């Protein structure tokens, strides 16, 4: 019984890490209809900024996180204006080509500037201490990530469903021409959404760095994982992404506990099964 609880905690924590890192991708893919394979690259940029700020400059963790989020957005703005704007509404394969190109460039530059070694983001003492849950200990950082995941989910849900901007965003997504005719500045809406998505990517990159450490190849190494959880959840749906992350996190964790040697089989067979049953993703809308 204790083992079951223990696995449950691990599953929840892992699922939340997946959620925090990939929810930004869900925004770009679902709401902006861009297959953004460079999502991992932005997460990585965030990680590098935070690492530089906290490790080399010795800034406080919270400040490093903020710096990472806004620094990444700052870097992403010209990228959005010059490159992404050209692929909105283009065929998916064209978007794939462009965003893979961007990813390659970012990897190359990171390798050149920061070198190929792992970079860590020093966490404050309070996040490093193990916390006892009675039946086991778990690192405070894991609990922090779970809290972050919940906060991001709620905040994003509120932002999209309850604010005036969210209304404009959803309108632009459903029918850009109509939204424009009603006076919505779709370009601004897209730019802001892109910034939000990139900010979330950077945030996820920093917060998840304990599990997915920052190094130049980060941008490609975890791309498949991000893509899978977002698509299984149904791109653009926050509850869907959350459900997919928790479900896949649980399957992955349990599989790796029960039969580690077949861990990959568990995960991908589950993916096939889920898509088989929900061909549009867990929360996919008919389109």
């Amino acid at each position: 019984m204790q083992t079951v609880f223990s696995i449950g905690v691990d599953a929840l924590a892992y699922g939340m890490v997946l959620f925090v890192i990939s929810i930004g991708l869900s925004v770009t893919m679902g709401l902006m209809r861009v297959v953004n394979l460079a999502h991992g690259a932005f997460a990585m940029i965030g990680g590098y900024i935070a690492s530089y700020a906290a490790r080399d400059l010795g800034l406080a963790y919270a400040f490093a996180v903020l710096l990472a989020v806004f620094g990444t957005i700052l870097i992403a703005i010209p990228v959005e204006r010059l490159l992404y704007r050209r692929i909105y509404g283009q065929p998916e394969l064209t978007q794939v080509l462009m965003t893979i190109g961007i990813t390659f460039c970012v990897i190359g530059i990171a390798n050149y500037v920061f070198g190929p070694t792992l970079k860590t983001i020093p966490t404050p003492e309070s996040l490093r201490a193990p916390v006892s849950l009675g039946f086991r200990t778990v690192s405070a950082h894991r609990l922090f990530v779970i809290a972050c995941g919940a906060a991001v989910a709620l905040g994003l849900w509120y932002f999209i469903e309850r604010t005036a901007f969210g209304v404009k965003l959803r309108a632009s997504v459903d029918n850009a021409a109509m939204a424009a005719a009603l006076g919505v500045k779709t370009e601004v809406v897209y730019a802001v959404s892109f910034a939000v998505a990139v900010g979330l990517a950077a945030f996820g990159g920093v917060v998840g760095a304990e599990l997915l450490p920052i190094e130049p190849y980060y941008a490609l190494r975890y791309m498949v994982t991000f893509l899978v959880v977002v698509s299984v959840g149904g791109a653009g749906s926050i509850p869907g992404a959350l459900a997919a992350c928790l479900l896949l996190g649980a399957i992955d964790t349990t599989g790796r506990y029960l039969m580690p040697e077949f861990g990959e089989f568990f995960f991908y067979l589950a993916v096939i099964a889920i898509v088989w049953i929900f061909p549009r993703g867990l929360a996919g809308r008919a389109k």
Partner: protein
Amino acid sequence: MALTMNTETLSTARDRRARLTRDAVGVLVILAVAVLGYLLFPNNLALLTRITAIALLVLSLDLVTGYCGVATLGHAALFGAGAYGAGIAAAHFGITDPIAMLAVGVVAGALAGLVSGAVVLRAHGLPQLVLSIAIIHLAHEAANKASGWTGGSDGLAGIMPDAVFGLYPFDLWGRTAYVFGIVLLIAAFVILRQIVRSPFGMLCRGIKQDPLRVRAMGASVHGTLIRMYAISGAVAGAGGALNALSTQVVGLDSLSFTLSAEALVMLVLGGTGSLYGALIGTLSFLWFEDVVSAANPFHWLTIVGALLIAVVLFAPKGLYGSLAALLERRGRTDR
């Protein structure tokens, strides 16, 4: 009516001649490039053979992605099935005749095509992409697990193909492998030209543009796509077998997500929905990669990335697609 019938028959004959001429030109161009490659880079035939094998993979991907509109990031499963099929036949069953190995590769590829088609065609769009990713990872893991058969992560070694027709052994310079590969590529090209132009190919193009319309014509979308997947698998399997024959080793990379993604990149780079696009995409990507990675083995990835971005910005339909569109526009204004 009799008169129109007559002109119709005439025009049919003329069409056929025009088509044959165009195909002959295509074959000649491939041949010319192949000979040119042989003459210009006689010391680099291994690379050229590798490009030929990957070209078969990209052609095969074009069949399902370019002609049928199926999004897949797992196409290397078909290529790897061919490579491992041919390799295992040689290493474990003593089937070392190159033609027989090729046949095994083709069959293994076609079977892999049927299986992955059956799974991938279940969904559309992104979920489809994810299914294909799951397939390639499962295939990769399965090959890693079955190390008794596949050599696992150390690679399947001990593939010793006989001489082709008992006359031309596979040599260090890679001449035999290269000629073998080019003949294979041309054969595949000619057959595929036929297929994409046939009623079946036309149906596939129809499915890509509007599957609902095709259903309303009484055609079975799923059945058609599955058949195309099997054909695609045979072509990719041939590429895999060629790879096994020429390098005499098969590694897990031939069943990797990376190879699948690269194949897709090459296809989009060249231009989807045209056999020439697939060939041009493969040739330019691998050639470019070879040149820049030799020039700077440490930071070439950045340059390749920049190339991809540039192509999207300046040739959004891919190298061949954009060129063809340009020529067409030019031709129209001239007229």
